[in-house]
């Protein structure tokens, strides 16, 4: 028998054994996994405090193996502010959907960014309200069908989508803003790198960072997972170009 077993792949310590409620092919699971890997790799599990949103990830406290609180819909950045300011040496992150962050919680995210709170925001943009079964989100694409835009989003009636990274990049309080996607393995690896940077910046007290992840919702988009990844690649990435929108932390 070999004495030193070297694992090539295993469940991160930062994830529990709980079965998630996520639909087959949903991006939330992938994003949880790479966040957990990052937190393990940085050795910060025991000092990390997460804030779960109202949305599909509402049960995140059951999936992450560290301290997690719930927050009212859209309020995670305010809750994170209260936690981080009370315990400045802990690592605090919010995990938010597009309805949570860019509709009901628009004020909270903008002002947490403006205050330059030293927190990490993982923003999962799946272009719809997953939890409530697929209504229009502030990031629903023009023409995209949802249960409240059954004929497709008509910008003259339903307004325009909000580009969060671009919007936040005008705010001096932000340090690192990157948009990634998870439609391919290289992109998942890129996303993990971005998330790691965002947490590292917080550890180095650099300030506010947000990683926007273009993710999928096969159930409510009414397409198989493979096609939903194609939608991210072709449709979403066109309207929401991936890239680094701000990196004021490098070498700082």
């Amino acid at each position, binding site marked *: 028998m070999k004495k030193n077993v070297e694992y090539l792949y295993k469940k991160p310590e930062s994830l529990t054994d709980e079965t998630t409620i996520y639909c087959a092919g949903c991006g939330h699971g992938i994003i949880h996994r790479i966040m957990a890997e990052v937190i393990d790799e940085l050795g910060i599990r025991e000092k990390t405090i997460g804030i779960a949103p109202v949305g599909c990830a509402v049960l995140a406290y059951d999936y992450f193996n560290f301290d997690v*609180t*719930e*927050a009212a819909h859209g*309020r995670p950045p*305010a809750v994170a*502010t*209260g*936690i981080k300011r009370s315990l400045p040496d802990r690592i605090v992150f919010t995990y938010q959907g597009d309805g949570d962050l860019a509709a009901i919680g628009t004020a909270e995210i903008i002002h947490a960014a403006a205050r330059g709170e030293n927190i990490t925001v993982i923003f999962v943009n799946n272009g719809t309200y997953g939890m409530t079964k697929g209504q229009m989100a502030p990031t629903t694409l023009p023409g995209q069908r949802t249960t409240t835009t059954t004929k497709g989003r008509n910008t003259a009636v339903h307004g325009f989508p909000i580009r969060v990274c671009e919007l936040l990049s005008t705010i001096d309080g932000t340090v690192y803003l990157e948009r990634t996607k998870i439609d391919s393995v290289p992109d998942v690896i890129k996303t993990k790198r971005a998330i790691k940077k965002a947490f590292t910046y917080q550890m180095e007290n650099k300030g506010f960072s947000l990683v926007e992840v273009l993710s999928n919702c096969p159930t409510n988009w009414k397409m198989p997972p493979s096609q939903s990844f194609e939608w991210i690649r072709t449709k979403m990435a066109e309207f929401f170009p991936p890239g680094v929108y701000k990196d004021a932390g490098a070498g700082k």
Partner: protein
Amino acid sequence: MKKVILSGCEASAEGAIRAGCSFYAGYPITPQNRFPEYMSDRMPESGGVFIQAESEVSAINMVFGAAAAGARAMTSSSSPGISLKQEGISYLAGCELPAVIVNMNRGGPGLGDVTPSQSDYFQSTRGGGHGDYRTITLAPWSVQEVYDLTYLSFDLADKYRNPVILLADGMLAQMLEPVELLAGKKRLPKKKWALTGCKGRMPNSIKSLFLTPGVLETHNWKLARKYHRISEREQIYNTYLCADMDMLVVSFGTCARIAFEAIRIAREKNIKAGLFRPVSLWPFPSEALKNMAEKVRKILVVEMNCGQMLDDVKIAVKNNSRIFFYGRPGGGVPTPEEILKEIKRI
């Protein structure tokens, strides 16, 4: 002991800091602007955190975060702002987090005005936000009591892991009075449930969501038992000139103070009125009021609203035909003479 001159806002803020409050988030609104102003200087001075939030919604959710992290945390506002805080207060109650919320009540509904009112009695004592919950509600009648009850609010919040509302008004907020800054004991309890990072223990979580059938009902019954315990143990009231009284005035806060003056004048005219003053509005001191009411034939309830505490008096006393009401809503403040007239009339 030496006294200092403070406004109600300052007295509450100072009481909070001395009670070990290390986190304040607020948003300006008249008549409590002095509160965030005072905190913006004193909090950093005392090693705590002051944040001027972007809204009352955000402020109460910051308080939620600080409370979850184990800090003694508070916010203050006035009526329209307290409406916005109801979301957070409901979550605090559901998650069983301690926090103190000060309401310097002004006239409503809507934007109303900025003068003193007691129109938020129902909102404070009936829950205010969604769900089957209660908030402990304390009502001071002097600046000294604003200080003392703020102190007590933090102890009660921690003791029961429940939000506590200090319900004062625009008068008490801005009035200057001498205050003795009594050095009460700082009882900062250990909070094993707090989110501090899971080093050396299993992870903690804070939540009010219970999707498994029956679990939320169980949680609600657990809360109900807690509210029952609070009801039994934490009723606070005062009585004045009740030993030889022929009639009883029931009033709270600023209004009780004006009523007391009316009673003093009445006594000069040989009208033997007494005063019952609930200090805890929830839990309402029903039993004590019932006993006091048995000594008199007539009871006059005086409030700066259209009759809200009146309901609780009726529940306590039961015999409604003996209960009379005088109120001034919408920022109206009664004079002692007005109340005296009512005392004479009934």
